């Protein structure tokens, strides 16, 4: 399967304090791709680079098979984008904003737009500036979906919204994916929400990519181990050691490992240690441990 977004060795700098270094990303076509990272890690900057709104210092960005930012006009016609902050004119009504947006896209889907107005219970006559935060978010999603793009880029689309609105938005997105087979690139720090829907995940911190993997692989491969009798230095383990610390009492150690497979317990037997327990981690635990390990100066991947 080809990649809808492909980034290679991307380098970008904003001022003295922030840069994106050596970034490689591959967003498979048809995937729902979760882009995770703490605030300030470079998610929004990366999205702006993908959309051609910023120009990289070096590296290559390809979106829907076309180079960015060179081909941004052709690409953006096929990309629905929901920015973190609403960028719409607050003096226009919902209806006017829909008509205004429709004029830019020959692919505009009037039927879907109308259906979503009903489903989201939006009032066509309300001024954008008077809408609640949830209604604004719904309208932004409506505009992106009715455009009928092949790629949706959503920057924290449900951040700060109540659970009811989040569900409505997520359901509308998933219905769209079922029907169109579009690719969705979604940045968020609401880990549990991504855990439900994404089939790929990337984690950023401090302008660098920490990991990029299929969701199941990341989840299956990240475990907490309770280990007894492990030597201080271990050589070439087949898994990745994220953290290692002594357990509270009992003399054992807690390890958090990546790329784990059940058969690897034999590695510990080989060095005279034993694994007493293998504990599953959910995506949030895994995410936090990855960040901790990365910040301690781990090697990243």
């Amino acid at each position: 399967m080809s990649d809808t977004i492909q980034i290679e060795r991307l380098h970008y700098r904003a001022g003295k304090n922030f840069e994106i270094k050596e970034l490689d990303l591959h967003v498979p076509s048809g995937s729902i791709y979760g882009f995770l990272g703490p605030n300030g890690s470079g998610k929004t900057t990366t999205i702006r680079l993908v959309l051609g709104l910023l120009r990289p210092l070096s590296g290559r960005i390809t979106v829907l098979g076309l180079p960015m930012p060179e081909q941004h006009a052709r690409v953006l016609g096929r990309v629905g984008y929901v920015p973190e902050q609403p960028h719409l004119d607050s003096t226009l009504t919902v209806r006017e904003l829909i008509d205004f947006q429709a004029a830019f896209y020959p692919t505009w889907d009037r039927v879907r737009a109308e259906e979503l107005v009903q489903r989201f219970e939006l009032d066509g006559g309300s001024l954008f500036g008077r809408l609640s935060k949830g209604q604004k978010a719904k309208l932004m999603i409506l505009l992106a979906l009715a455009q009928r793009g092949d790629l949706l880029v959503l920057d924290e689309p449900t951040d700060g919204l109540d659970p009811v609105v989040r569900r409505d938005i997520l359901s509308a997105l998933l219905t769209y994916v079922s029907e169109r087979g579009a690719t969705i690139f979604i940045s968020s720090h609401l880990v549990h929400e991504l855990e439900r829907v994404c089939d790929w995940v990337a984690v950023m911190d401090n302008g660098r990519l920490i990991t990029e993997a299929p969701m199941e692989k990341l989840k299956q491969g990240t475990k907490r181990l309770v280990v007894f009798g492990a030597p201080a230095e271990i050589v070439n383990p087949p898994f990745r050691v994220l953290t290692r610390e002594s357990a509270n009492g009992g003399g054992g150690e807690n390890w958090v490992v990546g790329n784990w497979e059940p058969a690897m317990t034999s590695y510990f037997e080989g060095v005279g240690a034993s694994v007493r327990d293998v504990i599953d981690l959910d995506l949030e635990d895994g995410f936090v441990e990855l960040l901790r390990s990365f910040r301690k100066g781990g090697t990243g991947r």
Partner: protein
Amino acid sequence: MFHGIDPRSPIPLYVQIAERVRLAIATGALGSAAPLPSVRQLAAELRINPATVIQAYRDLEAQGFVEIRHGAGTFVRELAPGRRARERSQHAVALVRKMLAEARRSGVSLAELQRALDTELGAKTT
């Protein structure tokens, strides 16, 4: 049928969904020729990736439980006699294994577990 699907569990969502469907077939909640929810409908309802639902349905098809008729939907197949009962006993084994693993982890002994089981089942132990 899909109540309590847990995205945080290490068991992949498509496996969980397929398990629920298999169980519903085994208990007769889903009879022969009964339709499964459409991919679109179930994805929106559970708020999960449609690809996850598709994978669950494909696995069920490969295991011979359902038939995917393109354009029409997914339907429960006629099962060989005894297959439902076999599925139920497999499910029972899975439940017991889960209980045993949990007991081991929390330090409950087998004797204690047996006593609790007898009491719960109302059996006389003299």
